[in-house]
């Protein structure tokens, strides 16, 4: 159920973001979604791509510092309170949420969010027990086609 996310180290200066994007583009890899976290001095680009292994190899070969993290994709009802309900369930289960961001794809009347948990396996189990839909990679990428 876990999804692979690639994280790339960036210096915070003009033009740094385009480099990894160009590398992925030249490898023919489409970015499904991304998020950018930054401080004044550096940033971390997090991307979800379907061919993550190829993406990883291409980025490494281009000299980027990259790592692979397991994240969890969760369906969230696209209406007021949809996200709050899920976050409350996470809180109640005492799970540590590191960060989250949204997918550009939707699933019917639902939005899809990416969650980064300290322990993704335990998180998936808890979410499913709480009746929350976790989307696996196969299902997710089918929707991008």
């Amino acid at each position, binding site marked *: 159920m876990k999804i692979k996310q690639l994280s790339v180290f*960036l210096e915070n200066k003009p033009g740094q973001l385009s480099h990894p994007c160009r590398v992925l583009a030249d490898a023919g890899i489409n970015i499904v979604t991304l998020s950018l976290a930054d*401080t004044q*001095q550096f940033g*971390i680009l997090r991307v979800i791509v379907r061919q993550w292994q190829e993406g990883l190899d291409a980025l490494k070969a281009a000299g980027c*510092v990259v790592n692979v993290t397991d994240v969890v994709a969760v369906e969230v009802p696209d209406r007021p309170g949809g996200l709050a309900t899920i976050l409350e369930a996470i809180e109640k289960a005492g799970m540590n949420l590191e960060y989250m961001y949204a997918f550009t794809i939707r699933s019917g009347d639902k939005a899809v969010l990416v969650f*980064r948990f300290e322990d993704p396996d335990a998180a998936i189990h808890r979410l499913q027990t709480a009746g929350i839909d976790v989307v696996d990679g196969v299902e997710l990428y089918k929707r991008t086609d």
Partner: protein
Amino acid sequence: MKSMWNDQGGSFNPASAADYLAPDPLRQLQLQRLRATVRRAYDRVELFRSRMNERGLTPDDVRTLDDLGRLPLTVKTDLRDTYPFGLFASDMSEVVRLHASSGTTGKPIVVAYTQEDIEVWANVMARTFAACGLGRGDIIQNAYGYGLFTGGLGAHYGAEALGATVIPISGGNTERQLMVMKDFGVTAICCTPSYLVHLIESGREAGTDFRDLPLRTAVLGAEPWTDAMRRHIESSSNLKAYDIYGLSEIIGPGVASECVAQSGLHIFEDHFYPEIIDPTTCEVLPDGAEGELVLTTLSKRAMPMIRYRTRDITSLVSERCPCGRTIRRIQRISRRSDDMFIIRGVNVFPSQVESALLRVEGTVPHYQIVLTRHEGLDQMEVQVEMTPEVFTDRIGSLEALQKKLGDAVERTLGIRVNVRLVEPHTIDRSQGKAKRVIDRRNL
């Protein structure tokens, strides 16, 4: 006695015999060679003659080794001021080779060798490799630059004189270095320490773990490096990393080398006579005292050098080395008197910053110090390259790393510095020599 000479598996190399001379014959040999060198320099080089005349000295005033301390010192600008050939003591018809420094500040310095000089050079480099435990059957990848720089050809001739197999790959082209290393079963490499770290990292990125290679020995020189860097190299490979020392003005690489004891560098003092002086008063200091290394060549013909100030800070060790060599050692040189910079009244050597950074788990020997001046106040930024080992997808962990590095430097230097994490391969490694300090203060 013979057993003492064996550096590794009984592979004593006859070239190393001079390393085991008893003190008395060694001093006699040194004095005899010193007198001949001073005579040659006085007779054939205007600069040495006029400086000695100014002091009322002639070559006959050198009767003991201690008399050397009365002779004038020579400095790097003397080589620039006499550019290109002003310090040559041989006619060009006897000079078989010229080398030159990179000349980053103005004109380069030019150095010359007769055929005998080349033979001495090959001998001291063969002794260097033997001291590092190498011999016949070793395959040495020579990644020092071939060309005007003395590193490449110096190591090359020494490896051949030793009877080892030398691969003259020169510097650069990391991919080819890794391929040759793997495919040719290379057992030893010569390069700068920063380039070796780069090779190990690049190997890891390309799926080559140095721990799986037959590579056992690294002969590293041409830039100052620390014991912390050595531990980093040795823990990420099966290498024993040896420090060697030399400078073009004296001969090139081959002035001094560590032995398998890795405890100071044996100076090949049958050819290069060492003194330690106080860099301010120029007074000669006794063995064991720290100061600036001053070298006098004892057998160079094309370009004898009398009391050359190296700017390298070290001390002479006269105690016997466990390896059995009788020639004296110098302590590892981790700083040069002209590397030092002053920031907010504090004297800083780049090696102090390097040791501090390497104390933080998982980092990163690629760094650069950038000095700037902001409204009259000096700022020091330490740029540290990010590595896959310490990178995570969490901002918080990277900020914590940044803080840890900053704290480590602050504890060592006593001043607050800014640490900036930068992308890999952004710090210049031109010529394989790391440039550690960029001073933009326009002092």
